[in-house]
């Protein structure tokens, strides 16, 4: 499966996190919220007007901007 970024997923799609290419502050925050390579992630919805994304990892729902989502490489399941 070719890898892509989190921002290209469609609502309802599942993926596995492959890598996180973020600066340290963002990386720490993502780690703390459960973003780790190998984890499964689901894109729940995207806000209108290029707004943020809602994703789910385990039991946690997380909002993040698309610019931040492009830094997360995932592999569709």
């Amino acid at each position, binding site marked *: 499966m070719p890898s892509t970024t989190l921002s290209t997923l469609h609502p309802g799609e599942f993926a596995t996190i492959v890598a996180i290419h*973020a600066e*340290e*502050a*963002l990386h*720490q*925050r*993502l*780690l*703390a*919220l*459960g973003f*780790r390579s190998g984890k499964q992630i689901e894109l*729940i*919805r995207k*806000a*209108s*007007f*290029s*707004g*943020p994304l*809602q994703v789910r*990892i*385990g*039991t*946690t*729902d*997380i*909002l*993040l*901007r698309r610019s*931040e989502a492009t830094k997360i490489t995932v592999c569709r399941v």
Partner: protein
Amino acid sequence: MKRVALLGMPNTGKSTLFNRITGGAARVGNWPGITVELLSGKILLGGDMVEIIDLPGIYDLHGFSDDEQVVRHFLHDNVPDLALVILNATQIERQMSLLLQLKQLNMNLVVLLNMADEAKKYGITIDGKKMSELLGVPIFLLSGKYGTGYPEALQAITKALRYPTPGMAEQLRSQLEQDVHIEAEMARVLKHAVQIPAQLPENLTEKLDRVMLHPWLGLPIFFAIMYLLFQAIFLLGQPLQEWVGEALGWLRESALDPAFAGLPAWLSGLLLDGAYNGVATVAAFVPLIVLFFLFMAMVEDSGYLSRAAFLMDALMARLGLDGRGFVMLLMGFGCNVPALMGTRVMRSRAMRLLTMLVIPFSLCSARLQVFVFITAALFSPKAAPVVLFSLYLFSFAAAIVTALLFKGKFKSSEPFVLELPPYRFPTAYQIVMRGWLEIRHFLRRATKFIIAGVVLIWLLTNLPPSAAPAGGDTLAGMLGSFMQPIFAPIGINEQLTIALIFGFVAKEIVIGALAVIYGLSGTALGGALGQQLDWVQAYSFMLFTLIYMPCISAIATMRSESRNMGFTLFAIGWSLALAWLMSFAFYQGARALGY
């Protein structure tokens, strides 16, 4: 006194728990090593007084957000005797990393797994005893919302406090590399002690979100909720405000006026028109702030505020703000003071300051009174609504221009990655507690400043004693004529300048001030204004009134919330500059076009 620090991730119900443990008897205080204030409360535990400190919620002990640094610096400079770690039981598999990080510091720990009731609903079972054994720290399941599980936890805290602190290792940073170890240990404990269903059952939150965050319906619903909230706060608040005003007026007429009648006129004027009116100004905000925070607590605790951030972020990100800032900006259209206090939900200081800079441009209900009076006096009934509407547009424009100009200066380094908590029904206890804490905070912080401001304006408009109050011979009058070179180019005469000085106290009193200055009231005052001013001057006056600092209470709130006098002065200075520039552009433009 022994010190207990409350630690945990955001959305763990930490503050609710804190309020329960301390019984709401908390106070705000400063601590060495950090620049933000923290809530702390003293309680009696096992015969000793113990101080409990509510630290900001953090995701990661080694993180770089403002809050994470605050916690690190606090722990470094104020080593607690015990860290009470609050974890959200429904997210145990993620939250345990924080606990293990804390454990590595060799701190004295007691762990509370909060929201045990909610975890049960998700089908998550946690073996507290087993987990306690594996980790080697006391662990208790409880529900902060319903108040179960407390006695055991308090007992354990009392016991844990008897042992001396092992001493805090100053190796915080070096531990960053050890996250691999943390992960392995997490997996080990989770595997043995926690069972989570593979796929969570669809719950109420998901069903609600399908409507509330719908691509097309989400925004209209958001605006409808904001509108209802706004209406509720001010429909309930205004009569309350009037009652408070009437009660204070009655007290003055029936008790204070006769009691002070023997004093010289200047002294009773200073005490009653100055100091007592200052108290009345503060009191008038009390019902509004209580209501505002009762409703805000509902919005926040229910989880809707994060949804608002999701819906509005696309627009607000371009202004350097976030969706929560937009909610506060909207609330500012009712009253700026609680809106400024409400920015506390934003955790990034830079973004919070930018939001506070923008909120005072929201056309609040007090300014609306001034505009309604002047438009009625100077514009035809047909033109008046258009004029009012245009002022709302200018209000938004001033906010947007300010945000765009200064977003570089107040750049938020905080990534926009937020947790979306499930919808929860806040309990009445939580809501009332919030309203009570906020009002106490406001009264404690703002009262002196507001009363001092009101007294100062009274002195300006009544000294020297020989001059007629608010006349041209008073200090305010002299200031007015001194500033004429500045105000003449925007079409504002001396009398109106004095009214603007009054306007620093509160916009509600601008019309009252004009009545004193002109010696007329009601329709007669309207007529006099109509004769003396043309519509271009009147509109210029309204523009200036709209944009410069709303009132002394807003200034006091801004100062106490930012804890930075320099920032407050900058906000005042910028609002004055922008007010002058916009009025100047309008006045000279209109005159150049021949109006």
